[in-house]
């Protein structure tokens, strides 16, 4: 059937190679996938740990400059990844202010870049999620004597679906990002090569089949993390 539709041959070949790579237990491919997962989960965890409380504050605390802060966060959603990578490169390069860390061309540098990119997403979506909760929930928690943290936890429980979407969106954004990872990670084989930078490399080398195979693996990875989150959410609802 694929032969009847020559345009699909490429895709079918990519899918075949993806399955073959998975089954063959290719150490390099598994290494790239695991590094992508490690960077994705670490950056998601940290971006959400920082961004969700920021979103809560933006949504619930009236303070001077709140509107301006919301505008900044919303603008940061559109940060070009390569620009973030460049700025971070400047900071982490040997002559930069954070050069002493010696993080340039390490997976930690990619994590920092991803956090910078995903933090505004987590903050803006969390603010929207919290603003979507019935204001009576917060008032009721407060009138029953709940302190700030218990009130925030009560509101978060009501916004759990929207907050889970914040986590999955942040993860999706991080694992799909390439500009910053390429600039501060350097796409070094066995050290900082992630699925997206590998896809870019193999595409530029003309090995479209391998690039496509890695792209499929990336999709499967994203799918698995989403399914895992949904299972956790389902348990929390039980």
């Amino acid at each position, binding site marked *: 059937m694929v032969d009847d539709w020559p345009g699909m041959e490429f895709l079918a070949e990519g899918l075949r190679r993806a399955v073959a790579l998975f089954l063959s237990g290719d150490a390099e491919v598994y290494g790239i996938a695991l590094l992508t997962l490690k960077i994705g989960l670490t950056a998601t965890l940290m971006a959400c740990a920082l961004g969700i409380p920021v979103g809560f504050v933006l949504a619930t605390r009236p303070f001077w400059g709140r509107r301006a802060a919301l505008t900044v966060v919303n603008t940061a959603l559109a940060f070009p990844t390569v620009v973030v990578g460049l700025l971070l490169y400047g900071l982490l390069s040997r002559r930069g202010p954070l050069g002493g860390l010696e993080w340039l061309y390490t997976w930690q540098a990619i994590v920092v870049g991803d956090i910078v990119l995903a933090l505004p997403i987590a903050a803006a979506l969390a603010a929207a999620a919290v603003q979507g909760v019935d204001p*009576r929930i917060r008032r009721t928690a*407060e*009138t*029953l*004597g*709940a302190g700030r943290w*218990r009130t925030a936890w009560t509101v978060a429980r009501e916004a759990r679906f929207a907050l889970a979407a914040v986590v999955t969106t942040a993860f999706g954004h991080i694992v799909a990002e390439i500009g910053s990872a390429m600039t501060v990670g350097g796409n070094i084989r066995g050290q900082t090569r992630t699925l997206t930078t590998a896809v870019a490399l193999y595409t530029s080398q003309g090995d479209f089949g391998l690039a496509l195979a890695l792209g499929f693996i990336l999709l499967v990875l994203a799918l698995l993390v989403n399914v895992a989150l949904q299972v956790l959410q389902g348990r929390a609802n039980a």
Partner: protein
Amino acid sequence: MLELVGVRHRYDGRIVLDLERFAVASGAAVAIVGPNGSGKSTLLRLLALLERPSEGEVRLDGAVASASPALRRRVTLVEQRPVLFRGTVRENLEYGLRARGIRRTKTIENVAERFALAPLLERRRHELSDGEVQRVAVARALAVEPEVLLLDEPVSSADRAAAQTLYRALAEERTRRPLAICLASHQLEDAYRFADDVRALADGRLSPITPENLFRVDVPREAFGAGGGDLKHVCVGAIEIVVATEKAGPAILAVAPTDIFVSREPLASSARNVFTGRVIRLTHHRGGVVHVTADVGAELVAVVTEEAARDLALTPGGPVVFSFKASAVRVF
């Protein structure tokens, strides 16, 4: 004692509450009545320390009260359409106690018993009717044993039987321990049945007279008839009330129930307002006073003595005539 002193509260620059002083004494049962939009809910939110007044202060036992959890724990509000948290009825009842780091199963079971909620303890919010949600919300507020309980239209979603259960439970609670209750309602009957002190709120201000016969009206600009002075016809329900006022436009119209003459037949008198109708109900109060609620084209309440009600043979459904002077009508 919980009080508002010199409070002016604004939303978007518009004054929604303007009270020189409003106090709920320890152990008192106060009812606030007034039409929708009169400021009842805002008043309760300020008393509950959930909002800070734009001007003035909230005082608790004479000291200026801040919105700290410690002070909030002494005053609890149940909103008009209360919400339950995610989880079971039991978890909701436990919420306030947990916030205080207390785990008292016995307290929860006692409060559930008093509010006829024992069979519902393991249900979740989507398995409850609106009336049950309201009952759970009141029980949840009382489980933390506040000194002041604020209730915003507590029986708005309840049928008559459920309302009775709720009021009975509240009365029992007040006999058990010192508890001040401040209730906002648009149902005068409930307010009188429940409270020792009924206050009327209209357009964010306390009404200078009793809360019955308060209407939001539109006063015409023109006076009627030649030499009519400031006499105007104001539409209230299906009747036109003659009032003497210079005011024009949106206003509150009030007729003190004690200013209404009650008779079986129209009387020859100087009263410009004479309306014939039927008695809806007779409510007997302390001190031999009877409130006569009648439909005379609008629902009006008059006050007579027990003796007068007997002499006039007033009965629900029976005929009645209400008369009052144009000068007895207050427009503000």
